[in-house]
């Protein structure tokens, strides 16, 4: 059964205020992805003064990313909510890099429920905040008693189910990919481990990973823009 353990392994413990916390594989992956994105952002920041009117090379890549994120935010949330492009663009880049992390044989940060649930909670808090801000606290509470007062429990459960389904969808897809790839690596004999799983990596890591990152960001945008319109 060796090699068939898919748990998120502990790497080393840290002691904070007498409590013992364990740093897991996915936390270290998260740090590396964060470091890569921060370095990318710093490189863009320091080279922005040398950007020219006619883009080429590195500037082209940066402009494409910015343009795609902006047009997508406008088409999903409307022209008024253009300011969300910065936040959801960062979330999308983080999720994309996290999901592609499995290609390097490391554990993707999104295969830890804490990562995905944290991101989904941000959307949840934003939905509640904008629901109260645009409609007022009175309309916000009234919304829970519609269409009929006795549906209050259902409405509350439906509201709480949003972050749960949002995070479980991403987590479930990525973890399923990790487990299936692990099983295949364990089942393939000898030298067939080189090359053969590449086809499945294209599906589980590249296709599924990019699609799930896209869907997570798109659903979050729709939830938040619905809360703003109400």
């Amino acid at each position, binding site marked *: 059964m060796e090699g068939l353990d898919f*748990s998120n392994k502990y790497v080393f413990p840290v002691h904070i205020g007498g409590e013992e916390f364990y740093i897991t594989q996915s936390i270290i992956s998260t740090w590396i992805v964060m470091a890569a994105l921060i370095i990318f952002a710093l490189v863009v920041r320091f080279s922005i003064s040398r950007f020219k009117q006619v883009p080429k090379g590195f500037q082209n890549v940066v402009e494409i990313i910015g343009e795609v994120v902006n047009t997508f935010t406008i088409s999903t949330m409307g022209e008024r909510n253009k300011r969300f492009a910065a936040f959801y663009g960062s979330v999308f880049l983080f999720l994309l890099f996290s999901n592609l992390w499995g290609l390097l044989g490391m554990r993707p940060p999104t295969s830890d429920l804490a990562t995905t649930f944290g991101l989904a909670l941000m959307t949840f808090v934003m939905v509640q905040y904008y629901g109260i801000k645009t409609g007022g606290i009175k309309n916000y509470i009234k919304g829970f008693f519609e269409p009929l007062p006795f549906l209050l429990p259902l409405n509350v459960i439906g509201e709480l189910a949003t972050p749960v389904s949002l995070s*479980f969808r991403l987590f*479930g897809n990525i973890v399923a990919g990790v*487990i299936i790839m692990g099983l295949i690596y364990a089942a393939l004999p000898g030298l067939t481990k080189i090359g053969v799983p590449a086809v499945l990596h294209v599906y589980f890591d590249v296709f599924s990973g990019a699609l799930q990152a*896209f869907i997570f960001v*798109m659903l979050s945008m*729709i939830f938040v823009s619905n809360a703003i319109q109400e």
Partner: protein
Amino acid sequence: MEGIDGRALILACSAIGAGLALIAGIGPGIGQGYAAGKATEAVARQPEAQNEIIRTLLLGDAVAETTGIYGLFIAIILVFANPLINKYLSLLGQ
């Protein structure tokens, strides 16, 4: 049932339960196939709206997939992080 360790019985039943939980995969499979068929029809009728149709299809698929993911989640918990064993051991401890 003589001679069977309680923990072994719990592990065996959890494995069966994990398999049963994945029956939840049937629903999203049928639903997504149906949605993909409808999307194909829509693209055949209006090829110029293909991008919009594919985006709507992916969004609908993601929502339809939720119940299947819940089933998968239960199966993963039962196989890799079984809470029933600990419950059994704590019952024995009393």
